[in-house]
C-alpha cells in the first residue's frame, strides 16, 4: 500500500463502485490532492482486471461479430454522441445562435448611431438657423442705411420708449421697447409699419415683461416696403389685420 492507510479500505470500495455518501465525498476530495492514493486506486482497478480474467472461457456467438460490424457500418463516424464530444455536434447551432445575437447587437448599435447622427444633423441645422438670425440682427443693428426710430408716449410721464430698427431691402425689423405699461387681460400691443403709401402693415404682436420691456425681431413683412413711421396699438392677443384706435405710441423716420 503506497497510499494513506486510513483510506486503504475505502479506496478498494471506491474502485468497486460501492463507496457512497460522505466517505466517498471525503475520499474523492483527498484524491484531488494525493498522487499516492490516486496511484493506489489505479492499482486496485488493475487488480479488478486480474479478477476479470478468472471468468475467461465462454466465447460470444459468431453472429455477434456480424451484428457489431453491421452496426459500425451503419453508423458514420462523428454522428454518434459521447460525453466528451457532444458539444461538437451542437457547435454549428451554437455558432449560429452566437452570430444571430451579434447581428441583433450590431443592428441595434447601428440604429442607435443613426439616431445620434440624425439628432446631431438636426442640431447642426438649428444652430445654422440661429447663427444666420444672429448675423442678420447684427447686420441690421449695424447697417449704415438702417432707419432708427424712437417712439414715446403721447402723454408723459411715465415715458415708455420704443426703438424700431428697419432695413427695407432685407425686410428686417428689430423693435426694442422699455417702460411699457402692462396691457389689459387678453390684449397685447401690436406694432405697425406705416408705409409711405397704403394701409398700415402688422409688424408683430408683443406683451411687455414685468419690467415693461419687450422686443420684436424680424416679424414677417412684405419685401421692399418703404416705411414712413411705426406705430403701436392695443389689440386682441392674436393681433389684428388693421390697427384699432387709439395709437398709443408712434414714431417717424429720422
Amino acid at each position, binding site marked *: *500500500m503506497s497510499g494513506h492507510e486510513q483510506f*486503504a*479500505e*475505502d*479506496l*478498494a*470500495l471506491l*474502485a*468497486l*463502485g*460501492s463507496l*457512497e455518501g460522505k466517505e466517498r465525498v471525503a475520499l474523492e476530495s483527498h484524491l484531488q490532492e494525493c498522487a499516492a492514493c490516486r*496511484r493506489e486506486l*489505479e*492499482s*486496485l*482497478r*488493475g*487488480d*479488478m*482486471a*486480474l*479478477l*476479470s*480474467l*478468472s*471468468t*475467461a*472461457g*465462454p*466465447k*460470444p*456467438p459468431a453472429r*455477434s*461479430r456480424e*451484428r*457489431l*460490424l453491421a*452496426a*459500425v*457500418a451503419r*453508423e*458514420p*463516424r462523428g454522428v*454518434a*454522441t*459521447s*460525453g*466528451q*464530444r457532444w458539444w461538437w455536434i451542437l457547435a454549428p447551432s451554437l455558432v449560429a445562435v452566437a452570430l444571430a445575437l451579434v447581428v441583433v447587437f450590431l443592428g441595434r448599435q447601428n440604429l442607435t448611431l443613426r439616431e445620434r447622427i440624425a439628432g446631431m444633423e438636426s442640431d447642426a441645422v438649428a444652430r445654422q438657423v440661429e447663427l444666420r438670425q444672429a448675423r442678420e440682427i447684427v447686420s441690421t443693428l449695424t447697417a449704415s442705411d438702417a432707419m432708427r426710430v424712437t417712439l414715446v408716449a403721447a402723454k408723459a410721464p411715465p415715458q415708455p420708449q420704443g426703438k424700431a430698427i428697419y432695413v427695407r431691402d432685407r425686410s428686417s425689423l428689430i423693435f426694442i421697447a422699455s417702460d411699457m405699461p402692462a396691457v389689459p387681460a387678453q390684449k397685447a400691443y401690436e406694432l405697425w409699419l406705416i408705409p409711405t403709401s397704403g394701409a398700415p402693415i402688422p409688424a408683430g404682436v408683443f406683451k411687455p415683461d414685468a419690467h415693461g420691456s419687450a422686443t420684436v425681431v424680424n416679424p414677417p413683412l412684405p419685401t421692399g416696403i418703404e416705411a414712413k413711421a411705426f406705430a403701436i396699438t392695443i389689440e386682441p392677443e392674436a393681433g389684428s389685420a388693421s390697427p384699432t384706435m387709439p395709437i398709443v405710441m408712434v414714431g417717424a423716420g429720422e
Partner: protein
Amino acid sequence: MSPAEFRAGLSDAALVSAIRSGKEDAMAELYDRYSALVYSVSLRVLGDAGAAEDVLQEVFLQLWRNPDWFDSSRGNLAPWLAVISRNRSIDGLRKRRPETDVEDVVLSVEPDMAGDADRATAMTKVRTVLGGMPAAQRSALEMAYFEGLSHSEISEKTGEPLGTVKTRIRTGLLTLRKAFQT
C-alpha cells in the same frame, strides 16, 4: 503479408488510432482480440447470454463512436475493457444508468494482457490464487466484484461485521496483485 496479418501485427494503440480515422477493419481486429474477454466478464455478472451479448455490443460500439474513451497513455486496453465490461454489466444488473456516458477509468496492472498467451497464463494464475484464498475472503471479493454488492449488503448477507468485509475485499485484491509481482 495479408491485410488480416498486417492488422494482427498492430498494437492496441495503433488499432484505436485507426478507429479514430474510421477504419472498420481495425474495429474488427479489436473485436477479435477482446470480445471473449468482454463477453465472459459480462456473462459472469449477468448470467444471461443475451444480456451479456448486449453489453458486448454496447462496449465496442461505444469505443467506435468515441475512440478517445480509451486513453492509451493511461493504461492498457485489455484490462481497461475487462473493468469497463464489469462496470457496465453491474449497471445493467442493478438497473441503474451509468454515472456518466464515458467512465474515467484509469488503471495500472502488472501483467501484459495484450496477447492471447499472456492472458491465458494470467488466467491460470488468477484462478490458482483465488483457489488458495480462504473461502470467506474469496466469496466477499466475488460478491463485491461480480455481483456488485456493497460491503453493507455483503455484511447483511453473511452476518459478518462491516469492517471485516471491507478488509476481506481489500486483502483479496492485494493478494491477486502480489501474485503477479516479481
